[in-house]
Structures are given as C-alpha cells and as structure tokens.
C-alpha cells in the first residue's frame, strides 16, 4: 500500500527542513559576501538540528512506503537520517573551527554539505532504483565540490578530479546493473524486482547485475578494490570534509547496501527469523571475501602512512571491512551490529578528525611528526585523540570494543570462524599504526614545545565526542536496543 504524494508530505519533514535551510543559505550567500561571517554556519546548525528533531518525532508505527513507493519511511531510514544528520552537525562545528576554510566563501560550503545530507536522507530511504540512483548522485556531486573546495591548492584539485572520475565510472557501472535488473523484471521498485527475481532463473544476468551494483555501493563505502579514490580524496580535501566523507556517505552507503541486497536478493523467513537467499546469486560469500580483503588491505597499507589524514583514510577503509562482516550473515543481529558499530564509529572517527583539525590549525601540518609531543603541548586534545584511537583499535573500556564485539559475535554465532579470525588479527595490526600516533604524542620529545591552543568550542566538542566513546564502552544497552529496533522495522 503506497501513500500518495500529498499524504506523504507529512513524513517528509526532515528533508523539508534541510531543503529550506539550503534555500536560505543561497539567499544568505547573496546578502553577505564576507567570508568571515559565521551566520551561514549557525544557520546550518539550526537547520540540521531541526531536521534531527523532526526525524525523531515523526509518527512511526510499522513504517510506510511514501511517494507512490519511491521512498520508505521506516525505523531503518530514520536511524540513518539521525545518524548522518548528527555527523553533519559535528562536521559543521568542525568546519567553523577549521583554518582550512579561512577566507573562502562559507555559505557555498554549507550548501554543498547540506545538499549531501539531503542526498544521504534519500539514499537511506530510497526503495526505487531510479530514486536510489538520483539520491546517490545527490550525495556524490556535492561531495566532489567539497573535496575540491580548496581552490588553488593542487592536492585539493587532484582530490576532486579523482573523485569525479572514479565516481562517474562507478555510478556508470552501477546504473548498467540497474538496467539489467529492470530488463529482467520490468519494474523499478526494489521489492517488486526481488519478487520477480525469486521466481525467475536468469542466473548469469542476475550475477552480472549483482556484481555491477556492488561496484557502485562498494565505491560509496570505499570497499577494496573500489577504494583507490579515498586516500587521495581524504588527504586533499579540507579536513572537515574528510571527516564528513569518512562517516556520513559511508553510513548512507551501508544503508542502501543493506536495503538493496536484502530486498532484491533475499526475503525474510518468519520461521527462522533470518533472511534467506531467494536468488542463486551467493552474494554473502562475495561480500565476505570483500570484507576480509577490505580490512586487510586497509590495515596493511595504513601501517605505511605518515600523513595522519591518509592514515585515517586507510583505517576507515578497514572499518568498512569490519562492518561488512555484519552484512554477510543474513541475520537481523548482523544488521544490528552494523548499526551499532556506525554509532560508535561516528563518535570516535569524527573525534579523531576533530583533533587533526585542532592540531593542523596550529602546526599547519598533518604528518605524524606534527603530533610529536602533543601530550605536553595540548594535553587535553592529546588524551582525547588517544581515547579515539584506542577506541578505533577496539580496546576496552572504549565503545569501539563493544562495536567489534557485536560484529565478531554474530560472525561467530553463524559459524564463519575464518572471518572472525581474520578480523581479530586485523585488530592487532591496526594497533600498530594507531599506536604510532600515540607514541608520537606521548612517548617522543617534541622539537617545538610551545603550547597548542585548543579553543573553548573545540574543547567542548571534543568532550561531546569523547564522552559517548567512553560511556558506550561501559554501558551501551540503550544504543543496542535502538539499533535492534531499527532493524526490526526494515520494511517496504
């Protein structure tokens, strides 16, 4: 039962809030030309904040399909809307702090940021391949602009260029896959496609379509071998934008990945409480291999990095690999593990980038050597970064450990032991490179011992990001429940 366009509007309020903010920003951009004005930053905060509020209060029930089946309004979508909006909120604070963006037009930057957010909202709720494709492009195109925002800087331009070329290729391959699906089933609704495929036997085109779509989504979550763009983009883009890419679009990528594959190639089985494959395409195995490859390549290459942004880029590739573990199990608990991990990952990864912003504001550099002696130069920021990094490693009592426990647990529960062992060994490898930064901060003596100032707002934001990283490591029941509820409502 699809809701018509008019009846759907009341379930579309968060998107309206973001759209309205974008339009206001355009006006603001015309009115104030001063690049130093913080008005656009505050306006964006307001807009995103109200979007979170509206997403939170929307009546839910069993969920519904709105706009004639184009978009789903369910717990799963709302979870991702709140998640991506929270990430955007933190990134806006970070952007207002960062010296990367000094002297450049502020309003335009926030317009791109919020357009991406709007795209992510739609991406996490799209249930029609046309809508899905549009949403993906709405995420991608402003992202290209964000990556290249430091006009005149070679790195930034290179980043944008790479991003565009890779992005265009990936989405081209993906839409080819979509066209195969449409050709086989005659429908653009993913639920309808799933039903038709379950009845048919066209294996080869189906496999082709599954793989081609995987290219598009794999590119968005930066899974190996579609990750090549990300280190260069992460290094070249303004740091807040990098932080944003590593969390927001990645989360939205996971949302669409889960929704698409589970709807098209699998169906919930009420007898076992699990999903079962309805088609002959064994995509769980495909993605299990991808998961192992992604975490291993990400971690091994991260070991060799000296630039912290680049290091975090590879580490975030590895984290996508960990999260893929939950995706291949065809179980609600597996998806719950992904959702839970995304929450803790949001705080710890954004936190780590936040400290990078603070440090590079002062040192104008992002190499590990620029972090030398941070433990005495800016003790507070250094301790915060240590917390984020150890949490990313997955060491208790920090939340990253709990996130990993959930992922490992489900993999072990379903008997995929080899993947659990690979992931465990990867955690050990990751300690080595995260600890390199910690070592520089606390163990090595700095050449320049002058204090690095941490502005009050940055300090407060670091507390806001570090607190959940610590608290969720000790008491995580509420978030686990929210994640579990958001899985159950996955409906179309």
């Amino acid at each position: 039962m699809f809701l018509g366009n008019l009846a759907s509007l009341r379930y579309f309020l968060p998107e309206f809030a973001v759209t309205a903010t974008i339009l206001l920003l355009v006006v603001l951009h015309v009115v104030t030309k001063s690049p130093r004005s913080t008005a656009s930053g505050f306006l964006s905060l307001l807009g995103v904040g109200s979007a979170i509020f509206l997403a939170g209060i929307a009546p839910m029930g069993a969920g519904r399909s709105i706009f004639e089946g184009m978009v789903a309004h369910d717990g799963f979508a709302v979870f991702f809307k709140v998640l991506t909006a929270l990430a955007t909120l933190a990134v806006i604070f970070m952007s207002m702090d960062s010296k990367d963006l000094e002297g450049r037009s502020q309003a335009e930057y926030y317009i791109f940021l919020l357009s991406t957010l709007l795209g992510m909202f739609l991406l996490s709720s799209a249930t029609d391949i046309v809508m899905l494709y549009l949403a993906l492009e709405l995420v991608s195109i402003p992202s290209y602009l964000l990556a290249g925002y430091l006009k005149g800087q070679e790195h930034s331009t290179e980043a944008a260029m790479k991003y565009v070329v890779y992005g265009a290729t990936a989405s081209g391959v993906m839409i080819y896959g979509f066209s195969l699906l449409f050709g086989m089933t005659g429908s653009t609704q993913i639920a309808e496609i799933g039903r038709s495929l379950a009845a048919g036997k066209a294996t080869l085109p189906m496999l082709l379509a599954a793989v081609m779509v995987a290219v598009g989504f794999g590119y968005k979550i930066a899974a190996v071998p579609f990750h090549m763009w990300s280190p260069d983009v992460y290094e070249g883009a303004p740091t807040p934008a990098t932080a944003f890419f590593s969390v927001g679009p990645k989360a939205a990528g996971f949302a669409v990945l889960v929704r698409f594959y589970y709807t098209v190639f699998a169906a919930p089985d009420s007898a076992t409480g699990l999903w079962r494959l309805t088609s002959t395409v064994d995509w769980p195995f495909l993605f299990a291999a991808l998961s192992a490859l992604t975490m291993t390549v990400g971690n091994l290459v991260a070991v060799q990095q000296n630039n912290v942004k680049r290091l975090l880029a590879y580490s975030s590739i590895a984290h996508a690999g960990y999260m893929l573990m939950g995706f291949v199990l065809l179980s609600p608990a597996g998806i719950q593990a992904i959702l839970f991990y995304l929450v803790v990952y949001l705080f710890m990864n954004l936190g780590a980038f936040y400290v990078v912003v603070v440090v590079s504001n002062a040192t104008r550099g992002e190499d590990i050597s620029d972090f030398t002696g941070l433990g005495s130069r800016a003790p507070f920021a250094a301790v915060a970064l240590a917390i984020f990094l150890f949490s990313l490693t997955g060491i208790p009592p920090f939340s990253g450990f709990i996130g990993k426990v959930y992922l490992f647990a489900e993999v072990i529960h379903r008997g995929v032991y080899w993947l659990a062992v690979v992931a465990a060994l990867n955690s050990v490898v990751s300690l080595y490179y995260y600890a390199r930064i910690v070592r520089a901060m606390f163990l090595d003596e700095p050449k320049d011992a002058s204090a690095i100032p941490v502005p009050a707002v940055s300090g407060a934001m670091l507390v806001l990001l570090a607190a959940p990283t610590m608290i969720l490591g000790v008491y995580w029941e509420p978030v686990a429940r929210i994640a579990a509820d958001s899985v159950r409502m996955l409906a179309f």
Partner: protein
Amino acid sequence: MGFVDSHILSLMTFLPLLGAAVILCVPKGKDDVVRWIAAAASFLPLLLSVRLWFAYDRTMAGVNVASQFQFVEHYAWIPSINVEYFLGADGISMPMLLLTALLSFLAVIGSFGIDKKVKGYMALFLLLETGMMGVFASLDFFLFYVFWEVMLLPMYFLIGVWGGPRKEYAAIKFFLYTLFGSVLMLIVLLALYFNTTNPETGGHTFNLLHYMAQGTHNAWLKGFDVRILMFVGLFIGFAIKVPLFPFHTWLPDAHVEAPTAISVILAGVLLKMGTYGMMRISFPLFPDMAVYFAVPMAAIGVVNIVYGALCAMAQSDLKKMVAYSSVSHMGFVMLGMAALTPLGMVGAAMQMFSHGLITAMLFFLVGVVYDRAHHRQIDGFGGLGAVVPVYTAFVSFAFFASLGLPGLSGFIAEQMVFLGSFEVFRTLVIVAALGIIFVAAFHLWALQRVFLGPLNPKYAALEEINGREMFCLVPLGILVMIVGVWPMPVMNLMNASLVRLVDLVKAVI
C-alpha cells in the same frame, strides 16, 4: 561496615580508579599531593585486603559452585546480552588479591622517586591496579576480559613514557603481543557464549560458573576438535602473559625498559594472570583438554625452567637476568599445574604467591643500584659488599630466596611442585630438578661478581640503601620468611579450592 563488607571486592577494585580521578583534578605542580593521594588510594585496598584475610572462610571451596564463593556481588549489567557484573573470591583468587593489594601499595611507595609527569604516572598506575584487581575478582568472562584489556593501556604508557632508552620498542612489543593473545581469547569467549546456556534462564551466558558445568555446553562445543581449538586459543592467550616459551620474548624487553616499580608489578602480578587464567578458566572449563595436554604443558614448564635459567646466566644486565629468572620460576607454576595432583596444584599456587614476593624484592633491589650507578652491568661493579653492607644483605637474602634456599618461601613452593609432579612426570621432573642447578648458578655467580672480589673504585662512595627503599623491602622479606617456615596460613587459604579444582578436572578421566 555493612556496605564495606558487602562490596569489599568492588571497593578494592574501584578505589584506585577513584584515586586516579582525584589525582587528575589536582592542580599542576603539586607533585607531593599527588604522591600521597596515590599512596592513600592504594593503601585502602590493602587495608580491605586485611579484612578479606580475616573474614574469608577457609572451608568453602568455590571454583565451580556459586554458593561457595565469598564476598559475592552479582548484578545485571547489559541485560540484552546477559553480561553480568559478577565478582567473588575463592581460594584461587584470594592469594592473588592479597598479593596485588600489597605489591601495588609498595610499588606506589617505590615510585615516590619518579619526578617526571608525576600526575600522569600515578593516575595510570592506579588505573592499572583497578585492572589487576578486577581480573582476579571477576567471575563473568566478559567482565574478566574487559579488566584484562584495561590493563594494557596504562602498562603501555607506563613503560613507554617513563621507561629506559628503548622504551618505545618495548612498550609496543608488549602491547602487540598481549593484544594478539587477547583477541584469540575474545574469539573463544564469544564462541563459548553462543554454545552454552544459562540453566536458569535458558539464554546465552558469560557466567564462568555456568561454563564450568559441562551440561550447559551444546553438542558443537562437546566436539573434540572444537575443544582442542578453544583450549589452545585460550592457552596461547594466557601463555603470552605468563610468559611461556616460545611466547616469552616480550618479557626481557618490557622488564628492562620499564621503571622499577612497573617491573615489580609486571613480574609480581601481571605474569600470574596467565597462570591464574588457566586455573580459573582453562582447566575447569575444559578439564578433558587439561588432561589431554598435560604432558605438553609440563614439558613447556620444564623448558621454561631450564631455558629461562640458562638465558639468565648469559645476561650481562642485572635486570635482564632477574627478568629471565621470572621465566624460569613461572615454569614451576606450569609444571605443578600440569601434574593435576592436589600437591602440585597447591605448589603452583604457592609458587605464584611466593614468586610475587621474591621477584618484587629483586626488582626493587635492582632499582636501588640503578638509581645510584645509572647502569646495571653485572661486570661493571665488584666488591660492593664492603661499601653497602645493608644493601648486600638484602640482595643476598632475595637471591637465596629466589634460588630456593630452605626456610624461605621459594623452597616450599618448588618442593611442593616437585613432590606433586614427580609421580606423574618422572623424567621431566628430574630434568627440571637439574635446572635448579642453573638457577642457583646464575644467582650465585651474579652475587659474586657484584658484591665480592676487589672493590671497583668508581663505586667506593656508593650510597647505602635508604629508608623508603627499605620500607618497600622489609614487609616482603618478612613475608618470605614467614611463608618459608610456616606456610600453613597461606596454604589453608587456597587448599580447599585447589583440591576442588583437581577433583573437577580428574572427574572427566
């Protein structure tokens, strides 16, 4: 006293953490205030441990029976996956809790000489104490694992920031080794969770006591190959901590680079966690595998004894020698446990306790000379006996205790291990007994080179051991003597539990 008595283990575990939090609030520059807060925060658990000693009922065995644990605290923590906050003490954990409380306090006093970043040092040290206490008090595997891992962070920093010249290398090596062991343990932990049920609720459980009831295991977990893999995974995790050959290579590095007080804790408490883990988890959970692997485990123990002693003899650095002596001594623990006889098991636990006291003395003593001479080369001294007679007396005492002189605690423990395991592994025990010769040899040879012979004129004015240092050594020395001549009080503490443990394992044969 009602609240204190009913939460005594929690208080012992978290008072140091509270102390660490208080220390972080102390303004900069007040280093003495920080030191005394740390001393207080580690003294309170010591006081509580005295209470523990007197309140503990020595007739209750514990091990696998929940109702026989004492000072139990049992609450739900994360209900959705059945993680529990479950603390309790029995004869396996009691000696370790007492040892931890004592050594932590003495190590804080021994750290008063640290003057670099005192605040950070003391806060991390207290966090470490929380982790150690928690490991020995936990009866929920998840909780155990969290405490087990929590120790890694402070240890990394304590070695890495306050350590010697190669501190960075030693710190990360320690961290990587132990994390490798831990992730194996994590996989076993999760596999256990999904293949056992809590008989009361029917849900999965992390409760160690439920794991010990073999009836809670499902068919998969009863498979022979599965149990081998799980036992070996756990064993490697614990063996790295002990450390057993061939996983011991992190230990000399970590010990040599760590500051004195941290070496004391590392050797005195952390190494025991490995063998404690085997007693608390590996053996009672997989009794069939403990029997199956008894000979290899005993052989590893003997290799540790002999190889550790030979390595110790080859060292030119006094601290490295003491570090390898720990490898050797921990071999006795493994040998005694592997015998699976009550005497061997009690001997192993006694050796854990006694080695904790003796090795703490040894590292304190090495620290004393290092603080004055700024090197530890055994051949770089000579004739110190004439210059620092009191110090020489202390070192001689500790060395004789370490090499197993009758009348001191090491002798009792090692003899019990030999007696308990001789019937089971004759050849291995004979080899191990020959290893004792090497143990004696490296101690005596080092003693001779440092304290006897012609005086090295460079150290003619070496300062005598001071009051604070003696304060750390005297209680340990007294305990070593008391346990050496009258071991019954300590043995009574653990006897019932260890006999139960052996019965539990033997029941599967």
